[in-house]
């Protein structure tokens, strides 16, 4: 249940459904958007590229949040679905020179169709069995890309991707892509927030909590499970297309099981069942990865007596340790902690 500041009441359904209810919330959103928009100008293209990576991950992890966090359908192959989108985008851009605005949804749809196969499997199986089934998606994707005719997806050689074209503009610079990825990510997140508050979102949660009970109250469980997979993998496909335009090359080795596991780690750290929580996870994990790769060489340079290998091994251990600490100390994720802090502030000075 959302806690609102004292004195804020909804008097219409529209107000009740609104995501942003107060002037201060609008102000906070405006400040956040302005800060995000200023990153490349103030901090430079290096940070713009960190942002690019986070925007793309935000789209993909939001999709996973809908499938796993909201609908409770285990998906250990989100990276593979992202790969389907990336290869679809690369193939369409290379063979038909289609514009970005057409390729983006097409990549999402291709991934959603691939995801639907596994969504249908989810009708009959769940839990560990479902997890194992989705792992097969990871391998099917890999072997399909490598063994399909090279003229389709480049086979083992992968595919180069031309710059995104939109309304006569070519997005070849990292800063240009930052704004493009940012706009797409913002749209996709807003859409996900809408889904989460819609009857579909409520059906997702009902199926997650108890699919038998959900069926008994009239929810079409088969349809909802399949839909959860389709929507989540659509997001992965869109993220994959953004990735293809960002890296400008797609290869099967870029979308591994290891990447899928990292995406689940982002959900766990941020908080399951919350769109914003997943975004917290993306920022924290991707930020830590950046920190580790930046800190390692600097430490090795500053303290050569430590020996490069010890420093770099420690960086990996540090990353793992931080994630483990999150899981031990805050298993409900950062979003839960954030909600508690907000709630405490709102009822302060009263204890509850």
């Amino acid at each position, binding site marked *: 249940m959302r806690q609102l500041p004292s004195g804020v009441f909804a008097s219409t359904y529209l107000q009740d459904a609104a995501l942003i209810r107060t002037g201060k919330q609008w102000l906070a959103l405006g400040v956040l958007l302005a800060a995000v928009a200023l990153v490349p100008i103030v901090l430079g*293209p290096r940070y713009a590229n960190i942002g690019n990576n986070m925007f793309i991950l935000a789209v993909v992890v939001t999709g996973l949040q809908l499938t796993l966090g909201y609908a409770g359908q285990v998906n250990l192959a989100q990276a593979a679905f992202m790969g389907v989108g990336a290869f679809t985008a690369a193939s369409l851009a290379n063979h038909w020179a289609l514009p970005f605005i057409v390729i983006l949804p097409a990549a999402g749809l291709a991934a959603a169709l691939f995801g639907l196969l596994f969504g249908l499997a989810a009708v009959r199986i769940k839990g560990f069995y479902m997890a194992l089934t989705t792992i097969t998606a990871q391998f099917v994707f890999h072997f399909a890309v490598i063994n399909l005719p090279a003229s389709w997806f480049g086979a083992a*050689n992968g595919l*180069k991707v031309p710059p995104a074209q939109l309304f006569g503009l070519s997005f070849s610079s990292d800063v240009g892509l930052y704004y493009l990825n940012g706009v797409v990510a913002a749209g996709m997140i807003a859409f996900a927030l809408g889904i989460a508050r819609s009857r579909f979102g409520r059906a997702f949660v009902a199926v997650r909590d108890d699919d038998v009970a959900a069926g008994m109250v009239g929810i079409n469980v088969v349809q909802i499970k399949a839909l959860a997979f389709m929507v989540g993998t659509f997001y992965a496909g869109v993220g994959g297309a953004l990735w293809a335009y960002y*890296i*400008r090359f797609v290869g099967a080795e870029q979308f591994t099981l290891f990447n899928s596991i990292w995406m689940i780690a982002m959900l766990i750290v941020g908080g399951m069942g919350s769109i914003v929580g997943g975004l917290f996870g993306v920022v924290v994990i991707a930020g830590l990865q950046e920190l580790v*790769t930046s800190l390692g060489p600097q430490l090795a340079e500053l303290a050569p007596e430590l020996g490069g*290998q010890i420093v*770099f091994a420690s960086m990996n251990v540090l990353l793992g340790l931080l994630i483990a600490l999150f899981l031990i100390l805050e298993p409900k994720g950062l979003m839960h902690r954030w909600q508690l802090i907000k709630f405490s502030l709102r009822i302060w000075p009263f204890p509850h």
Partner: protein
Amino acid sequence: MPKISRRKALSAAAGLGAMALPLRAMAATAAYNIAGLADYSGPFADIMKPVIAGRDAIIKWWSTEVGAGLGVALQAKNYDTRYDAAQSASLWPGIRSELNPICSLGVGSVDATALADRYAEAKVVSIQSGATATNSWVPDSWVLYYRATYAHETAPFFGWIYEKEGRKTPIKVAVISSEAAPAFVDMAKGIQAVAAQLGQIQVVELIWDAVQPVDLTSQVRRIVSAGAEYIVIQTNTAAVVAAKRALQALNAKIPIVTTSHNGMLASGKAVGGVAQMEGDFEVHSMVMPTDDAPQKKLYDLLKSKYGLNQPWGVLAAQGMSQGALAVRGIEAAVRKFGPADLSGDKIRTAMLSTPLEGRDGMLPTVTFDRSAPFPTSGLTANVATIKGGAYTVAARDLPVPNLKKW
């Protein structure tokens, strides 16, 4: 004391000043940065130290012993890419703003493909450390390699056997690889291309297995039944160990042909002793790191004076060769355009228009052109084997043939 007029004194001072100008210009050293990409925390972290130490030492050595005379000083700084495409792309703008590098030293195909367009836009030439992957085999590339593909390197070995044995029929070859990584698929397809294009070998069996196979007995039985005379394994040491164990179990003696990263010493160590690799081969374009190799003298110099604190081996040689191609390119550019205002564009132009030779001795004199990212003439392959339980060079400087892209 003779009296010197004010006019004479001024003239003398002006003359001395004029004489000193070119001397000052010669003494001034232009400093340039090189960006080193590394994998300190990713899948190749365990082998990165000797590679990086080798290339860093070559750059220091060249800067002191060659660059100083040419008026050029080089400084390298390494960045951790985790062998990850996103991390490589993310780091690049920061590297450019921090170093403004004239050259980048890459790790492998992941950073090469992720940064290929970015190198071209920034006009920074990149020198890679491994063999060329087919996805990087494009014309007009800004990413250059000192080695061609694994298939290019293996072809002269079979040509050498073919000639040595006076063969009239193709050598029957089996390949063990894995579909788990596109690079491994590329290796196997390369051997098939060598068979199709040169006709000296015939691939009688192609085994796709796991990246780290545990048991290959049934697969090797098929290879034996197919009458294979050699087994080519270019994936890793685990595959060599599994194939060796299978051959021993089947009491079959078929020589295994490996490459640099799964060579005789590494695979011998994994299998329980190099003596078990008796009669097997290691083939690649790099120096075979034997103690009597002429390049060992350079290694010893780098170790004693330039901080190369890693053992003499194929990995140190890999880094040294990568550094050697980079400094050769820079040297060619300095000789062509002068030491001032050196740029990646000038280095690339010099590399593509000048035969690259150097006093390092790590590579033969090689020539690049715009058709491929690796030298199109001058490349050679070396062959090492285990003979009498010792790691020895079987053949040196076998010319690498030209192959069509597969």
